[in-house]
């Protein structure tokens, strides 16, 4: 199997603006890679460089063993699904799905079978004779996926494919995409999203992008439990980032000594302590922090407390409280030493 995508120092510039800065990243055959980042982070540019709609100013793009950097899009043999479906409005569903097969001069006799197979796979078999405008958004996106899969690409590019759908439909489609990938284990997926839930749910690995650069890359668990940068910690899982100073066997946070693994950080150095809100508990315990409640949000199963500790805001997600605590109440929080990750300060500034 020779599929997969390799970015080799890919840089994209428009005039003086660098929209993608020396991206080096490998997506293995059959791997699901999510490009996660806020808008303007360069993630869509990276995807478009694979598709061939963006010409890198430097670096090479490989699909499998092939250097495709200088190939036009129609010679790259990739499937692509975009946010707004981009179905051909004057063609029926089956004609849309057949488009790629005909464009690639597929034997005429095989086309109907391949179209039916692709539509069956996405659960749209019953809609073959409809026009796109007669379908709902979710159905149109299924057709767009079927159209991309009909040409049996080695690489499937998905650019915010679920962003135009409402929340409930989105989680259904997410499960559907996961199922499709289990049925097509050899297809590499490059999935661009700004939604961490989509990335955490679907991806084998996540590449976190910000300011045109790759910030971090790892499995969802790695990024979530042991983020390497402040940006990753806050963008994935919205962690508490506490400014601390490294001490002998822990850190000092707003005058409170906390026991956390320091991993050889130099005592006296400034650092950032990352603690997930749902790992912060109420009441006394190891690493206790005293502060006042500045805001309470009820989120159904949980309460999100914002607690002012020595001038810093600490977020805590706790099981739904029977009595909502009043604002200004003094409260004690704690977290286990192993749940904290120490980050060198300013990792993300560059």
């Amino acid at each position, binding site marked *: 199997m020779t599929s997969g995508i390799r970015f080799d120092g890919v840089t994209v510039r428009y005039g003086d603006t660098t929209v993608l800065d020396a991206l080096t990243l490998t997506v293995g055959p059959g791997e699901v890679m999510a490009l996660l980042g806020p808008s303007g982070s360069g993630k869509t540019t990276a995807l478009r460089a694979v*598709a061939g709609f963006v010409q890198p100013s430097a670096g090479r793009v490989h699909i499998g063993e092939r250097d495709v950097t200088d190939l036009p899009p129609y*010679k790259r043999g990739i499937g692509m699904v975009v946010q707004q479906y981009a179905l051909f*409005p004057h063609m029926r569903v089956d004609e849309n799905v057949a488009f790629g097969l005909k*464009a690639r001069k597929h034997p005429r006799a095989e086309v109907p079978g391949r179209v039916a197979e692709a539509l069956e796979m996405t659960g749209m078999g019953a809609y073959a004779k409809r026009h796109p405008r007669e379908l709902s958004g979710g159905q149109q996106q299924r057709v767009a996926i079927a*159209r*991309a899969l009909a040409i049996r690409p080695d690489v499937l*590019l998905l650019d915010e494919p679920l962003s135009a759908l409402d929340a409930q439909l989105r989680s259904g489609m997410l499960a559907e995409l996961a199922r499709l990938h289990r049925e097509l284990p050899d297809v590499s997926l490059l999935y661009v999203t700004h939604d961490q839930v989509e990335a955490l749910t679907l991806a084998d690995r996540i590449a976190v992008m910000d300011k045109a650069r790759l910030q971090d890359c790892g499995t969802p668990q790695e990024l979530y439990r042991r983020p390497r940068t402040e940006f990753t910690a806050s963008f994935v899982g919205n962690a508490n980032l506490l400014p601390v100073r490294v001490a002998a066997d822990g850190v000092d946070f707003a005058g409170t000594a906390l026991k956390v693994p320091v991993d050889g950080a130099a005592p006296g150095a400034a650092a950032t302590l990352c603690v997930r809100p749902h790992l912060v508990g109420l009441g006394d315990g190891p690493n206790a922090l005293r502060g006042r409640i500045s805001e309470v949000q009820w989120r159904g199963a949980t309460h999100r407390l914002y607690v002012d500790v020595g001038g810093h805001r600490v977020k805590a997600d706790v099981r739904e409280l029977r009595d909502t605590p009043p604002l200004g109440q003094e409260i004690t929080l704690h977290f286990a030493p192993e749940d904290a990750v120490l980050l060198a300060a300013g990792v993300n500034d560059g």
Partner: protein
Amino acid sequence: MASAGATAPPVAAAARRPRSRTVPTWVWALPPVAVLGFVFLYPLGLVVQESLAPGAYADVLASASFRDALVTTVWLAAGATVGCLVLGFALALVVAFVPFPGARAVSRFIDVFLSFPSFLITLALLFVYGTVGMANGLWTGATGAAEGPFHFLTTPWGVLLAEITYFTPFVMRPLLAAFSQLDTAQLEAASSLGARPARIVRRVILPEALPALAAGGSLVLVMCLNEFGIVLFTGAKGVTTLPMLVYSKAILESDYAAACVVAVVNVAISVGLYAVYRVVSRRAGA
């Protein structure tokens, strides 16, 4: 909400009350209708009445000059329309989809071009290809021959060239509007599915441009049928179209009855085609 609902009827009533004291609205329609009737419908009626002179239709419709003019008019108009559609589609494709510096300026210029009088184009062509124009001048200067090789401007082909040059922007305008509505993601999707540019134009762009092509094409067809200035200015003596025939019958031969018959036929064809244009452009949502 309730208070807004309660105040609404008095406001509506107040708005209605002063109107009941004014004159009925249809009165206001009288002056424009009167002016329109006097300056337009009345002369038109006169033309139709004049054409009904005994034997006028039979004479004109049986005459070879009328049939020649009819054939010339129709084939020139049809040919110019086809030419404008092909050229306009190709140029609009380039302007809309090939990124080049000044593409916006070009599409602005097309709007300006529409305001030019038609004879201006013919005049420009005369300067280039006319008997003493630049092309022939270059030729005679280079070869020393007595006259240049370009004489087509006084033939029907010259009229065709001038009409295509002048009317092509009339096709490009609706096309550019249609292309700006086209989702570029569709073109990219087609491209990633393996379609080369030619297939994308044929299978994706053309089907979505059909309504605009039909609207622009029928507009050009109607305008070409009635074109007078271009034919006159090329000085093509052998090219007699229906409007030219009206001119020569009425002004040169003072045969008003015949001129009116030709005019009525011309008007009938134009109005018929205009009706088609309306139907087509309404379906296109223009």
